[in-house]
């Protein structure tokens, strides 16, 4: 009897999980479906779910009008670049806060996080002027710098949480065996924190890929990533929903595939330390 009720619970939870999952995924699914409709079918009322004439003309038109691969490459360089630079800075920073905390470590962490509370538009003009004077406007280097800086607090916080889980005694033992600071971080701490670092890396790539304020405001033609590509298909005067959906599908496809393949690491990283 108990076994039966256990099984029923499992069924309920599975159904509920699928329902929530589908609900969350529905906007993406709808975007993908709309990308295969004509503009008239895209606004049809009642909406057409699957019974429409599937077409690839929106993809062809988007590809003809825009240089997708240039935007894609810019997104890859900017998101990977900013993540790697961010990790290079954040690993030592999180190490020092986790293993050699000072009296003000918590305050420093909170202060770092507080920078995320400032609306970005508040610092747009100063940053724009700095970029103009240093020749960084519309460059991938400029975007790597700015995205590194805006995501750094999150990287440091995540790594700090993982490092806190690692027993300090292991590092002490390494020190007693003669390991220097560099060897301790590179050869002892980093291998043990690989799952945490991997999930931080993945999450940061997603954040940088989707960032749409700085990437839109600091670029023009050369360094514009996929966010600018999508923005070029949205129009307040004209119904181009099918083309916009095709552009959106092309922009999110790479990150969706990456997320699909790395979901285990992502989930593990995000729930790490959540249950004690």
């Amino acid at each position: 009897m108990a076994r039966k009720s256990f099984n029923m619970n499992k069924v309920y939870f599975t159904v509920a999980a699928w329902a929530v999952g589908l609900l969350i995924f529905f906007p993406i699914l709808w975007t993908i479906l709309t990308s295969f409709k004509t503009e008239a079918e895209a606004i049809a009322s009642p909406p057409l779910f699957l019974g429409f004439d599937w077409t690839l003309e929106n993809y062809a038109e988007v590809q003809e009008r825009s240089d997708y691969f240039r935007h894609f490459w810019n997104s890859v360089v900017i998101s990977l670049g900013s993540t790697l630079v961010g990790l290079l800075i954040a690993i030592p920073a999180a190490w020092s806060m986790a293993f050699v905390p000072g009296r003000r470590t918590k305050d420093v962490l909170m202060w770092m996080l507080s920078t995320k509370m400032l609306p970005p538009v508040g610092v747009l003009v100063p940053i724009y002027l700095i970029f103009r004077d240093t020749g960084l406007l519309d460059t991938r280097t400029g975007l790597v710098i700015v995205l590194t800086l805006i995501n750094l607090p999150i990287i440091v916080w995540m790594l700090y949480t993982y490092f806190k889980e690692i027993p300090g005694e292991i590092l002490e033992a390494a020190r007693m065996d003669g390991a220097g600071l560099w060897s301790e971080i590179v050869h002892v701490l980093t291998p043990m924190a690989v799952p945490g670092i991997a999930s931080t890396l993945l999450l940061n790539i997603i954040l940088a890929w989707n960032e749409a304020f700085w990437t839109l405001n600091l670029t023009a033609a050369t360094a514009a990533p996929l966010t600018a590509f999508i923005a070029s298909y949205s129009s307040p005067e004209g119904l181009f929903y099918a083309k916009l959906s095709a552009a959106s599908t092309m922009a999110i496809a790479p990150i969706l595939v990456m997320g699909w393949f790395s979901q285990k690491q992502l989930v593990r990283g995000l729930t790490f330390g959540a249950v004690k």
Partner: protein
Amino acid sequence: MKIFNRLLAGVAVLSLTATAALAEKLTIATVNNGDMIRMQKLSGDFTAHNPGIELEWVTLEENVLRQRVTTDIATKGGQYDIMTIGTYEVPIWGKKGWLVSLNDLPASYDADDILPAIRGGLTVDGKMYAAPFYGESSMVMYRTDLMQKAGLTMPKAPTWDFIAKAAEAMTDKKAEVFGICLRGKAGWGENMAFLTATANSFGAKWFDMKWKPQFDTAPWKKTLTFYLDMMNKSGPPGASSNGFNENLALFQSGKCGMWIDATVAASFVTDAKNSTVADKVGFALAPDTGLGKRGNWLWAWSLAVPAGSKKVDAAKKFIAWATSKEYLALVADKEGWANVPPGTRKSLYANPEYAKVPFAQMTLDSINSADPTNPTVDKVPYVGVQFVAIPEFQGIATAVGQQFSAALAGTITADQALKNAQMLTDRAMRKARYYK
């Protein structure tokens, strides 16, 4: 021979590279409306005649574009050589010296051919700071079959009372047909563009000659209550979140009896490929109340050169091409007369071929009936029909638009919305030191 061939190929590659290096690259920021996309597609004609100039396009959604070009021009960032800007920006930026004057375009450009109403909105102290790419006003688009069924005939120049009466007669809520579709979504370029133009026809105005806000006056109360009554009786549900695109979708799918909006919509609703009512659409001038002003607006997307550009001559060459009579002929030749960018040149409307386009004359009449330098019944200190050309307007009008949208949604009353609008506009104008 092989070596010679290789040498020749090498020289060819080098010379090509050198040409590319010598070519002047113009970065053009533009909105992604259909006419602009067409210009991008046809720009090969310009580069073929100007081999020393390369074009790089930055095409963006209107609001994103506005934010980006404003940041760039205000900080003299110099990222763009040509910007697509509207009639709101031109007087403000021209006055600040942020734009290059286009008075010296060649005589063959024939600037006198530009429609006076459009040219007036792009000129500051005698200097034209932007060349119009396409101009638009607003007008009534209506379903001829539903109007006939209701036993009414749309006059060429209707009054608001007729529109309200017709809207009620055309409404059949059971069949999901609504007599009138109007903008309700909050925003200075959304519901406030419509309501400001409508208010002009009711004798209302944003500011008096001392820049004091006027939402506490009778004409504004009349405007807002009329709009709310008509929309509540004959408008679609959820109208407070409808903008241009939502109303276009409703009209195209046969759910609106009348729609008052941008003249550019005429080409969409008569396009049989996307509209189910393409052959049942009629046009009329925007309504009035007999006070001498109609409820239509005036807008032009125009090309301008920011003062920070280092390629002014090449930029002017491109602008002269894109806004010329020859460009209009090129579009007509490649895409047909219905796709020619409307509302900029007198010669286009004198062309018998263009006169055959069903909405051509009504677009011209609508543009001609708007006067941006004299937009209201009473005298006002500002320029602009559906906007007030001051830098503070975007922020203020969006906040006021939220109040009016809330009134349409029924969360506050018309009186509360007007009181709040008066209060917040007064506060913003004091802060900006228009008065103490």
